[in-house]
């Protein structure tokens, strides 16, 4: 038993130094950061979101560029700002690349419209990166979006001050330039890795894609 434990410790040490030194090795292991392709891509037709800065957002208005969509709520103190900060680093990386065809929109959609107005969401999203879009919808609209994405949210109980948590899908949803869901990626976001994933998705559309 001792020998097995020692071997395990040794292995962990060896393997983790490989992991620490080479992020490529992290891909494909476990679920975090891995790309789950949606094939054939799933249409978002019928989805309708409200944005203060960008007006109505529909599948039609999302066509023409790739989009990373993330669900959350602004009263989320930990996970949402963490992911949005990482996405902001990703976005500056893409901007540095400069190529017009490689630019990706980031769209933050609140599943908590009772506390998050479209105006508040535009300010919130732009705080992380001026290019980020913030939007929400009616509860029916959110349901329609979640059903298209295979996503989910649920409201937690209220505390004495009326605060409540929102359990929500924590994946990044990658929409192609036809506004179709083409991949789901579970954070953490490593900007360089995400950028490579996006390049791969952009250059190798799904077999069943309507392109």
């Amino acid at each position, binding site marked *: 038993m001792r020998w097995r434990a020692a071997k*395990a410790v040794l*292995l*962990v*040490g060896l*393997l*983790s*130094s*490989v*992991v*620490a030194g080479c992020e490529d*090795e*992290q891909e*494909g*292991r*476990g*679920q*975090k950061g891995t790309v789950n392709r949606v094939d054939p891509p799933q249409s978002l037709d019928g989805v309708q979101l409200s944005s203060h800065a960008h007006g109505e957002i529909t599948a039609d208005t999302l066509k023409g560029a790739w989009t990373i969509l993330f669900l959350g709520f*602004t*009263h*989320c*103190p*930990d*996970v949402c*700002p*963490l992911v949005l*900060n990482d996405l902001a680093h990703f976005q500056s990386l893409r901007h540095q690349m400069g190529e017009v065809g490689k630019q990706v929109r980031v769209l933050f959609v609140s599943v908590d419209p009772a506390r998050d107005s479209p105006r*508040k969401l535009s*300010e*919130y999203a732009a*705080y*992380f990166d001026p290019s980020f879009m913030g939007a929400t919808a009616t509860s029916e609209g959110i349901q329609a979006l979640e059903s298209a994405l295979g996503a*989910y949210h649920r409201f*937690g109980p209220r505390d004495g*001050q009326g*605060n409540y*948590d929102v*359990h*929500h*899908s*924590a*994946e990044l949803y990658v929409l192609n330039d036809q506004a179709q869901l083409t991949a*789901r990626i*579970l*954070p*953490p976001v490593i900007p360089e890795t995400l950028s490579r994933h996006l390049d791969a998705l952009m250059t190798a559309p799904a077999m069943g894609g309507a392109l």
Partner: protein
Amino acid sequence: MIGVKRYGLLSVFVVLGGLAIFFLMLGAPQIDTMDGKLTVRNVWLRAMPPGGSMTAGYLDIANGTDHAVRIVGISSSAFQDVQIHESVVREQVSSMSSVGALVIPSGGHVSLRPGGLHLMMMGAHHGISEGDRIPLTLSFDRADPLVIDAPVSRDGVGLALYETTASLKTGHCALPKVGEGHPK
């Protein structure tokens, strides 16, 4: 690396090991020494987006005393309420739950880091912006309270190293270096 997929548990260890090394490189509690003190390091609060009323705080706390120490209260004059919460992602769904009591075992440490355990800072009395310093008081069951001057950052990157210590009430060590409040 071949065959790792087959060993689910092993890959968990690998990721944990990787994270441990990553955090060590970040200057997290390196070796927990039995120095007879509670040591708080790497404190920061997340800058609050416009219109927000809550944010998160992070820190590492090491217990070099020979008693387990429990955090019995956290407060800040800039917030109505501070609790300890934990973010969990399960089945691709993110949720948060309140952590009743946080005990730092003797000779051990607890890390509050983005995406996991964190201070849930609720009901901000004013905006919390990058560069601010926010007072934070940690109360313990068997040590004097620690008053911390927590820096505010957007992402916690590039902060100066922060360290402050408290001694056990029952011990005969010197008074806390930083720590003004009165025991409750």
